[in-house]
């Protein structure tokens, strides 16, 4: 039997992870829960691999910068970066698509290609003005 579901195109997402024992949410995922000390096994064989919860949507800009001296692999004049806080209290760093950002402004956290390397597109957070 061929499992055709593996060929289905899925929207790329960034996930927070939920501790199966106490429900605490994390981004990025740790290996031990800070609150209840539950362990996580990425393979899911010995312990749970923890529930993935899509992270994104409405968020608030905490701080930002526009960087001109970029590392290898980013062939543009500059990029904007920001740290945001989502409505569930989790925070994340990511790419900022707003050209005149202000601390405290409301943004929408979407997922897009943040880096292109040979044979692979790397997805991550893109923070933009809400639609």
């Amino acid at each position, binding site marked *: 039997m061929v499992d055709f579901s593996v060929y289905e195109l899925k929207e790329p997402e960034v996930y927070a992870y939920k501790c199966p024992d106490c429900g605490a949410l994390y981004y*990025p995922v740790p290996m031990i829960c800070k609150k209840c000390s539950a362990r996580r096994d990425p393979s899911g064989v010995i312990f749970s691999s923890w529930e993935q919860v899509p992270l994104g949507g409405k968020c608030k800009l905490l*701080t930002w910068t*526009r960087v*001109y001296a*970029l*590392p*290898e692999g980013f062939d543009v004049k500059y990029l904007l970066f920001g740290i945001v806080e989502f409505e569930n209290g989790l925070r994340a760093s990511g790419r900022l698509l707003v050209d005149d950002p202000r601390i405290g402004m409301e943004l929408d956290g979407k997922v897009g290609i943040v880096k292109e390397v040979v044979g692979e597109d790397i997805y991550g957070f893109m923070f933009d003005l809400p639609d």
Partner: protein
Amino acid sequence: MRKVAIVGIGHTVFGNLSEFELVDIMSFASGNALEDAGILKDRKIIEQVFVANVGGGIINHQTGIASSLVSRIDLEPAMAELVENGPASGSSAVKAGFAAIASGMVDVVMVTGGELMRTVTGWKGTDFVAMLTHPEAEYNYGLTLPAFAGMFTRLYMKKYGLTERDLAMVAVKDHENGAKNPYSHVEIPCTLDAIHDGENANVVNPYIAEPIRLYGACPVSDGAATLILCASDSPKMKFFTKKEPVLITGMGAATDTHCVHNRKDPLELTAVRLSAEKALEMAGLSPEDISFAELHDAFVILELAISEEVGFFEKGKAKEAIKEGVTRIDGRLPINTSGGLKSKGHPLGATGVSQIFELVKQLRGEAEEGRQVKDPEHGMAVNFGGFGNNVVTTICSKE
């Protein structure tokens, strides 16, 4: 715990040394320290070597650097190991040496830190340093250390009313000191007019990671520095009669979250505070007892923020100290007397060792004319790894 003395110091010039090999520059600094300690011929009394380096395997295509160094300067069969802790590698290696002696395991240790970063393009060098950020949640985006420093600076400005002119004043002060230091990468003074007030300032001093400008960040440097340590109570102290020993009286280290966004208050440099508290407690001192300090100003904002976090000034008040000249060579609490990372340079693995080299020079009274602190008793060095996720503080004192 046994008392540990610094009995020899060595340094290369910091700057572009890309025509040399990594182990050659480390060997040169080590040789200078052996001569300074007066044990070039008796060098085999060194029982253990700790080497601090970050990029040997990544950008210089060389591993096993500690073994290579020992062989290059004829120190076999001394034990030799590498310590890698990002930009705080140097102080971590000193801490390993301190612990090896304090525990009674060995009597004489050499610590050499070195980095050769200018053999690759700035593009690759920036990528190499950024590798210490979180691979998935930070590095993939193109986030770099300057990016985090830029975001930190923006928050600090908003909370405490810091201005770009205040930051430029820190750079001017650091370059004034660095210009008198023969080991400096950028050994030229700069003026407030050139980098902030004048009409061409935006050209001379452009943004690199807003609101950080070129003169708000350290250069990319090559270089090496060495310390030789000996147990104060060891009979081997008889070999070290050439210079007055300086004691390591306090060492502390602490870590913080890998991801910057996971800190409750991104302006709190918790690992800085905790490492300084531990070092001060070990030394039995308070911040008021410190005569001068080398603070890890990879970005000048960090000189201000670290000086507040270790307890020299209240939060948000370090900018007043800069304006009042408190941190100048002739001020009440001189900071970055060497020129700091800003002017002297920042070869990652060498930096922490070089900071303590400066503490020893000042405590011996050997600093060059115009940058010698008057009658110092205790010096503090804060070596800041990652964006504050791994910090080592060292206190040195006159015997």
